[in-house]
Each structure stands twice: as C-alpha cells, then as structure tokens.
C-alpha cells in the first residue's frame, strides 16, 4: 500500500506475552475468551447454586426461620438473575466463542477486540450486580423486577438500582457478542462451508445471536425507564399519574420470552452435535432441525403474553397468545423426534456426554409438556404464581439447558485441554444430578397443583406440603454433590498426565480435525468443505451395501474411539482435511503456513479490559454521584480511543 500509516503514540507498549496473568487480561484469542467466559460463568453457577441451597434450606420445613423474608427475597432474586444472565447466557457464549470459528474453519472471530470487550463487560456487569451485597442489600424484586413494585416508594434502598445498572452493563456484553457471532458466521466461513453445511450448533448460535440483537435493546429501554423513575423523578411506572404497570410486563416479557429461547437453543445445538457422534449416525433430518430452530427463533417473538394471562388482557389477546404458544411446541416437538430418530438404530456409545444428551431429551420433553399446559388459559390461571411454574421452567432451563451445557463440557473438554474427563466420575456426576434434579423439581409439580405459592418465604404446617418440600431440599443437596463430583473430576483430570487422542470421540465436525488444544491460529491451512459432517467423510466411506468403511488416512482407531488415552499416533496430520483439494490460489495464499509460520493473528490488547473498567464506575456514578461517573467515563473514552488508534495486528507480532 502506498500510503504509509504513521504509528500512533502509545501510552504503553502493546502486550506481547502469551502466558501469565496479563496475557489473559489482554487476550483477543476467541478460544481463550471462551475459556474466560466458561470459568467465570461456572463460578457464578456455584454462587447461584449456593443461593438456591439457602432458599431450599429455608423451605425444607414449615415456618422455618433460617432466613428472614428480606433475605429470602434477595436470595431468590439473585439466584434467578445469576442463573439467567451470569450462568446460562455466558456459558452459551463460552461454547460459541470457542467453537464457532473452529466449526466453520476460521482462524478467529470477526471482531477479536470487541469480543474481548464483550467478556469484560459481562464480568464487570456481574461483579457490579454482586457489589449490591456490600452496599446495603441485594435486589429483592425477582429476576423479572415487576414495576411498580420495584419503584422507589415500594423498594427503597439501592438494591434495585444495582440490578438495573448491572443488567444494562451485561446487556452491552450480550449485544457485542451477538454482533460478533452474526458477522463471524456470515463472513468467515471456510470455502465450501455453505450455510446448510454448518454444524447445527453454529446454526443455533446464529439464531440466538439474532434473538439477542433484537431482545436486548427492549430490556435495556425498560431498565432505563425504571432507573429514571427511581432516580430522576420520571413517571413511567408511577400508577398515581397514569403510569401503566402492564407496560413493564409487556417490555419485560417481549424480551423475556425470546430470552427463554436464547437460553435453550445453544443447548439444543450442543445436543444436536453430541447425539450423532455417539450414535455413529448423521443427525436425522439436518435441514428440518435447522429450520425448526429458525422457526422457534421467529415464533418466539409471538408468545410473550402467555406470561401475563392472569393480568387481564382480555379473552382475544389471551386466546391469540394461547394459540401461538401451543403452535411453538410444534417445531420444538419436531426437534425432539429428530433427536430420538438420530439415536434410533444407531451404534450407541454411552459415554458421559451421551448420558447428558439423553438426559436433556427426557427432561426437556417433560418441561416442554408442562409448558404446553400453561398455554391453556384456564389451566394457567390455576398454575400461575405456584410451584408448578417453578417446576416447569427448571425442567427446561436446568433439565434442558444445564444438562445440555454439561454434556457439551464433557464432549469438548478434550478439545480445550487435550485431556479426557474421567468416565467414572462423569457418570457419577450425571446420575447424582439426574436423581437430585428430579427429586428437587419433580415434587414441585405436585406442590404447585396443591397451591403452594412461589416467592413466599414461609408456609404453614398442615397444608400437605411438608413432605414434598423436604424431598425437594434433599434433592437440591444431591445436586450440590453432583457439582462437587464435576469439580473433582476436572481437578483430577487437569493434574493427570494422560493425554487424549486428537479425535477421541470419532467425531464429525471440523474442530476435531486440528490438534487439541488448537494452536492460536486454529487451522494451519484453511480447510475446504464438501458436505455436512465433512470431517467424518474424510474418515469413512460406504461400501456397496451401505456399511461404513474406514478410509486409509482415517482418524482415531477403535482404542482411541473407546476413550482410551493413546499416543494419538493414528490420528490425521494437522490440516489433513482436504489439503489436496485446496484450489491452487489458496495454496499460494497459504504458502509457508504449514506449521503456522507467517500466519498473521490479531495482537493482544489492553484496551477492551481498560474500557470496561469504566462500566462499574459509571454505574456507581449513576447511584452515588456524578464524580464516579466522570472517572468511569475517562476509562471508557481512554479505552475506546486507544482501541480505535491501535491497529488490529502489529506488523511483527
């Protein structure tokens, strides 16, 4: 290029190290950011789990006094908020970050620094939310924060303000992640990776990103409105002056119902990856699964008022939303049948990821069916605000999303760390979680139909609720044990010297065609894709009678496929995927890249983390006075300007 670009003056040198603390602060590598998302979200999962255990402790016996009403309200609010915004959403972002570029044959995401910025925004928003415990009490208005109950007269103190601002900040992270995923998926696919050859997980991640893109601004506006009401004398939800409490419900659930699909679709994508691998069959009806996911994404916008049947919207609105709610069960049901058909007649290998995937199908189906019962309006009048609802959404979000995400953790752990998690502890984890989960949430169906109200910290003896509440609390302790088994498993595995073979599951998708853990540049040579499950077709072909025949250059041997940690000497050379079919011009473009030499990757940067330090400071400013905000604004501006003025990649980084 003719025009020489003058190097801008720098406040500090570009980070260069690839190990140690600062390398994690400054990383722009999508795989490391994925790990950061995963570890952070898991820590929040522990915190949210402890909050749930405290709630269950209080409810174990009638008239318990373990918690006060105020503490109870704070704990169930923080439990719900944490699990939705700080656990399931970022865990999905963790998988998306780590896997999407690998699955589509890309070296990075479209906006590496924006990606880092999204993570830091999520972390600072989450920490800001938890600062509330230190500054006069956590939010206590439920994860839905219904106004006017959450307006100043009814909820004095700063808890709700921390909730509002914390969620606005994490929303910034979700929005940047959504933009990044959409553009990455549309623009960075390897040659031949057409949309209908993408792994289902990538598809679901794309649908979720669009949902985030359109849902986050709505909740952001609602949060701002409530913030203005509480702090600047605005009247959005001041019923005395004609402010409409139903408006909050519409805004919240117009975000909140797509949010439900934001939480479940990534797990559906993960399960759609696991089932074919452990059934040794292609996914049954790939296109139908993809289009069902897209259909859910569209229809998810037309069902929100089923959260509001009891509000009194009138028979026309209730009937319309009842119909749309029943209708959205159709694409969901289609997916369930596709998953079952995938395992039908397959050569099933019951490894831990497969256990979790099968558990997902069973539990999610139960949750889906109880969900359909809410679509029947008179039935919903009976269920609303009872433990039946709590049972329902835990079956979809825990039995569904969390089981799917744990399945994904077991499945891709060898990809991320190069080590296989122990099968024994893994299956112990599964069975404890499966039993504990059903003991906890199964009885809540009965409790709900018997009329036990949710969000109530105490109940009287003699209501017929005592026994099932005790069972549920015992179940929650079993869940805690199962998570402990997972932690022990991870700790043992990370200390072990055993290395997993490069393709331990005999998998189907591109991420397994490269070494584990992958090099920074992912693909030494960009693959050329010819079909769905391209990697599989490089390992196997069919003989005349349709039986699988391994190709001579194939992947893992049977021993490796059985999960034994071998030397991995029979796995394909890195980049073996269709190097021979790379068109000539790509060969030229990739010349000298065989071992990663000369591949130009984005350089690490301090600026995304620096900018996001500004968020909690601006947040404090919004609560305690403008000078905090001014300091925060300085950080934000300095970070963004530094970011804009430094090149994406240094010349000789």
């Amino acid at each position, binding site marked *: 290029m003719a*025009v020489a670009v003058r190097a801008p003056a720098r406040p500090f040198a570009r980070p260069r190290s690839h190990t140690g603390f600062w390398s994690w602060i400054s990383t722009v590598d999508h795989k490391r950011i994925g790990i950061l998302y995963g570890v952070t979200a898991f820590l929040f999962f522990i915190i949210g789990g402890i909050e749930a255990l405290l709630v269950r402790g209080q409810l174990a016996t009638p008239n318990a006094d373990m918690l006060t009403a105020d503490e109870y309200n704070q704990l169930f609010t923080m439990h719900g908020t944490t699990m939705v915004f700080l656990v399931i959403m970022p865990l999905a972002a963790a998988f998306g970050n780590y896997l999407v570029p690998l699955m589509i044959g890309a070296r990075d995401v*479209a906006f590496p620094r924006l990606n880092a910025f999204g993570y830091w925004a999520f972390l600072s928003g989450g920490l800001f939310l938890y600062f509330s415990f230190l500054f006069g009490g956590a939010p206590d208005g439920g994860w839905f924060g219904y106004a006017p109950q959450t307006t100043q007269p009814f909820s004095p103190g700063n808890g709700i303000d921390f909730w509002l601002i914390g969620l606005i900040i994490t929303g910034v992270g979700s929005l940047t992640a959504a933009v*990044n995923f959409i553009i990455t998926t549309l*623009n960075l696919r390897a040659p031949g990776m057409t949309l209908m050859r993408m792994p289902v997980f990538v598809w679901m991640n794309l649908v979720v990103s669009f949902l985030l893109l359109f849902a986050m601004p709505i909740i952001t506006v609602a949060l701002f409105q409530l913030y203005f009401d509480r702090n600047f004398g605005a009247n959005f939800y001041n019923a005395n002056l004609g402010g409409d409490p139903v408006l909050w419900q519409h805004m919240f659930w117009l975000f909140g119902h797509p949010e439900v699909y934001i939480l479940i679709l990534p797990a559906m994508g993960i399960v759609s990856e696991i089932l074919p691998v452990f059934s040794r069959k292609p996914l049954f009806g790939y296109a139908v699964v993809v289009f069902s996911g897209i259909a859910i994404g569209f229809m998810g916008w037309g069902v929100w008022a089923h959260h509001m049947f009891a509000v009194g919207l009138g028979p026309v609105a209730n009937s319309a939303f009842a119909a749309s709610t029943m209708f959205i069960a159709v694409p969901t049901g289609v997916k369930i049948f596709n998953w079952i058909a995938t395992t039908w007649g397959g050569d099933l290998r019951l490894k831990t990821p497969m256990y979790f995937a099968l558990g997902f199908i069973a539990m999610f189906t139960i949750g889906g069916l109880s969900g359909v019962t809410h679509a029947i309006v008179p039935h919903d009048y009976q269920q609303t605000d009872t433990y039946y609802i709590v049972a329902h959404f835990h079956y979809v979000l825990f039995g569904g999303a969390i089981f799917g995400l744990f399945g994904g953790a077991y499945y891709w752990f060898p990809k991320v760390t190069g080590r296989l998690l122990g099968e024994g502890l893994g299956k112990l984890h599964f069975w404890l979680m499966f039993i504990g989960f059903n003991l906890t949430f199964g009885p809540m169906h009965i409790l709900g139909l018997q009329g036990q109200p949710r969000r109530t910290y105490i109940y009287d003896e003699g209501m017929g609720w005592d026994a099932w509440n005790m069972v549920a609390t015992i179940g929650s302790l079993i869940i805690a044990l199962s998570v402990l088994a997972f932690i022990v498993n991870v700790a043992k595995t990370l200390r072990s010297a055993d290395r997993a073979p490069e393709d331990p599951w005999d998998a189907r998708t591109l991420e397994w065609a490269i070494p584990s853990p992958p090099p920074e540049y992912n693909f030494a040579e960009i693959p050329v894709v010819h079909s769905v499950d391209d990697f599989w077709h490089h390992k196997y072909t069919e003989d005349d009678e349709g039986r699988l025949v391994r190709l001579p250059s194939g992947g893992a041997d049977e021993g490796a496929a059985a999960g034994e940690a071998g030397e991995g000497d029979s796995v394909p050379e890195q980049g073996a995927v269709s190097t021979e079919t790379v068109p000539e011009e790509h060969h030229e473009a990739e010349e000298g890249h065989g071992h990663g030499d000369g591949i130009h990757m984005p350089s690490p940067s301090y600026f995304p983390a620096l900018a996001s330090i500004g968020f909690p400071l601006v947040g404090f400013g919004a609560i305690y006075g403008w000078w905090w905000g001014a300091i925060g604004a300085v950080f934000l501006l300095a970070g963004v300007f530094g970011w804009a003025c430094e090149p*994406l990649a240094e010349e000789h980084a």
Partner: protein
Amino acid sequence: MTHALAAPPAHGAAPGDHDYAVTGINSKKLGMWAFLASECLFFGALISTYLLYRTRGPVGQRPGDVYDIPYTSVSSFVLLMSSLTMVLALAAIQRGDHRRLRIWLLATALLGTVFIGGQVYEFTVFVHEGLNISSSVSATSFFVLTGFHGVHVTVGILWLLSLIGMSLRGLIPQERNLEIEIAGLYWHFVDIVWIIIFTVVYLVPN
C-alpha cells in the same frame, strides 16, 4: 503491506485473512448494520412507550401542549442537512481529498452541535413553562425519548471529531474510507430516527 485496517476491499481477501468476507460485504460494515438493526428496537421501545402515554396527563402538563413546531422544524432541517454534509465527506475521502473530508466532517459535527444546542434550549424553555420530566407520564416519555436521541447525536459528534483528529494525524488514508462510511451509516440512522420522532411525536396532533 500496511496493517489489516488499511487492507484492500473485502472480496479480494483470501480465507483466513482478517478482512475475508464470504458475503462480499466488509465485516465492519455488516457489523454496523447489525448494530443499527438492534437500535431500531431500542428506539422502537421508546417510541412505543411515548405513543402509549402521549395523551396521559392534565392539560398543560403534556408535551403536546407546549410544542413550538416552527422552531423544532428548523432544528430538524439543520439535522437533515448534516446528512448531506456527511455524504459529501465520504465522497471527498473516496476521491482522496483529505482537506474537504475534514471540512465536511467538521460541518457535519457543527450542524449536529447546533441541533443539540437547539434541543437543550427547547428543554430549557419547556422547563420554564412548567413542563419537566416529573410533570406527567407523557412528559416523562417525551423527555426520555428525545433525550436518548440527543445522546445518540452527541456520540455521533464525538465520533466525527475523533475522525477529524485521526485524519489530521494521517490515520485515514483513502483506502480506509470505510471508516467514514461506517460513521456515516450511524449518522444517517440517527437522522432517520429523528424524522420518525419529529413526525410521530411533534406533528401527530394530540
């Protein structure tokens, strides 16, 4: 080779390059479009709230009672003209005319500043006439909607000023005219939102 930001247009890049783009549309530009799609819902939610609330409140305490349509028409015209100067700035850098790039960027920023000044004046007058954010639900939704639009214009002005600064330091060569185009997309979007707000909020009678 200069760094990636100064690389040639997207469709020339090989797979694995930073500016590789399957769709043929540069990733940064596509990313801005995606962000603007999200912004539609942001303003959509604010405008919906205003439409729900616009008639609620005692007489004299509603924004519809104090609008000065000729005044706001003039400031709307000023903002619309800034879209024209934005287009001229992009045309200048595409020709490689750095001086006119900076002149038109500055003109755009100035027109935007005049608009913001006008909004501040309008708010002040309203407050003096007894209409503030607490007056009624309609006043609340008016101030918050137009206020958020004003914040968007202000961010745009800061962005334009930064681009002028970058141009002065030689950081925006002709090949990087995309930087200007993307800022332009944002600026035009904010203008279009104002057209909708002016129509729906000011011109539709109570």
